């Protein structure tokens, strides 16, 4: 375990250095959060009949989503991409540690450090000025916390899987952008997932991406009651396991046929 913890903490300390970027990120995310919330609330003013979410759910859904935006696998690990392209990955293979675990450890730092820098100021801002309130019950709060942890692992499993695909695609530029679109839409960052048309809901819930953001956010607001939390958490964990297994299998194949570039 120790070498992986070392990877996490080393990467973590590196990533915590990007404070100016984090500051700019907070400003930008706050602006976008404000606009997203205003748009959704405006639609509610014309709403007739019951909707899948209440206006009271929206501030928490939007603001926590903006605060944790960096947790979703919206890009691949640039340094790993460079390693694969330049052939540096051969050194990685020489190390007496498991490559999958090592990449997973990197992903863990990549998906937490930027969030830690941004989340606190954004939550404070949103609570002070933009109507972010506490969860309706302690149970919802707990379910949210558990679900965020599960979402983080799911995000890391996806990140590593993307890293592995680099062994085939090399550049990763195209993959990266397609993944960005998919993740942002199906995790609930464009509009909350319950607002997609009813006929589309089975697709949205079947995909793993809902577990990245939508599930924890709706648990926080109580839109998914805390009593249903176990079912949703199970789904998140099951997807994580499936993606880890897929990632491991692909990596094993990738390393067998790996051609090292450069000499």
């Amino acid at each position, binding site marked *: 375990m120790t070498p992986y913890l070392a990877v996490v903490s080393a990467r973590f300390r590196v990533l915590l250095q990007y404070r100016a970027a984090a500051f700019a990120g907070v400003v930008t995310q706050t602006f976008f959060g404000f606009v997203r919330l205003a748009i959704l609330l405006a639609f509610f003013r014309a709403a007739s009949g019951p909707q899948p979410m209440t206006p009271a759910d929206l501030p928490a859904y939007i603001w926590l989503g903006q605060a944790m935006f960096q947790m979703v696998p919206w890009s691949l690990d640039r340094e790993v991409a460079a390693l694969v392209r330049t052939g540096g990955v051969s050194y990685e293979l020489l190390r007496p540690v498991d490559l999958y675990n090592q990449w997973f450890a990197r992903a863990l730092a990549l998906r937490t450090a930027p969030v830690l820098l941004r989340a606190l100021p954004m939550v404070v801002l949103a609570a002070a000025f933009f109507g972010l309130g506490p969860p309706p019950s302690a149970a919802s709060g707990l379910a949210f916390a558990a679900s965020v942890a599960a979402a983080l692992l799911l995000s890391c499993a996806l990140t590593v899987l993307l890293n592995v695909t680099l062994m085939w695609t090399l550049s990763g530029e*195209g993959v990266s952008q397609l993944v960005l679109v998919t993740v942002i839409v199906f995790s609930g960052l464009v509009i909350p997932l319950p607002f997609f048309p009813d006929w589309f809901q089975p697709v949205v819930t079947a995909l793993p991406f809902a577990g990245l953001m939508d599930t924890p956010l709706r648990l926080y607001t109580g839109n998914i009651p805390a009593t249903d939390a176990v079912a949703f958490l199970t789904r998140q964990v099951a997807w994580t396991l499936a993606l880890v297994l897929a990632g491991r299998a692909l990596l094993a194949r990738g390393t067998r046929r790996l051609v090292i570039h450069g000499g």
Partner: protein
Amino acid sequence: MIVKLLAASLRANLHYRASFFMQTVAAALITCVEFLGIWALFSRFGSLPGWSLPEVALFYGLINTAFALTDLFSRGFDMFADTLRVGDFDRVLLRPRAAALQIAGQDLRLRPLGRLAQGAVILAWAAAHVAWTPDRAALAALSLAGSFCLFYGLLVFQATIAFWTIDSLEMMNSLTYGGVYAGGYPLDIYPLWFRRTFTFAVPLACVNWYPVLAILGREVPPAAAWLAPLAGPAFLGIALMAWRVGVGRYASTGN
């Protein structure tokens, strides 16, 4: 001369055809997704208070088309912090042509074509629902030109700030990308302080909201609809003046 510069960087770009194609498709996809979100909300809620989907599409199409055009021709300003950091701006200053002109022609990226195509399609769809008159067509052109200038001004400001600091420049994204995002909807859904900011500080309302209101046949004083878009070129003018001050106090990063 600007045409020559742009043509040169265009040729450089086309050397990477596959990558160019993929990036354009991806960029188009990203903006399509945004509009799909609007559509999904309309199909769920029926309407935005006081606005139909084609009407919102007109706001959205005009501002996205204008921004894509700006994005197409302003890459040099957008990336100016890098030019400055590595000291390349020295070379620009040595040449006997206006610096702003050289920067504008520096790097023509075709990636915004994706957004441009998508914005134009939405705009065309929205336009099919408008009762056009020569006046209204002129207003649409005025709005496009005004928005183009306004966004260009914002990017020139962003580049100018780089003379003082290159930290946290991404904050300007709130005004450029954020402005496009916010301006894609009728402004009356936002709180008053927000609308005032985007009328008087960054005159987005002047170049998009007022002319579009007139095109849609809403109650708006003709003077506001016709004169407001001029705020765009005015904003660009102020930005260029600030730019000159910045160039004046430029001290190279040295080599």
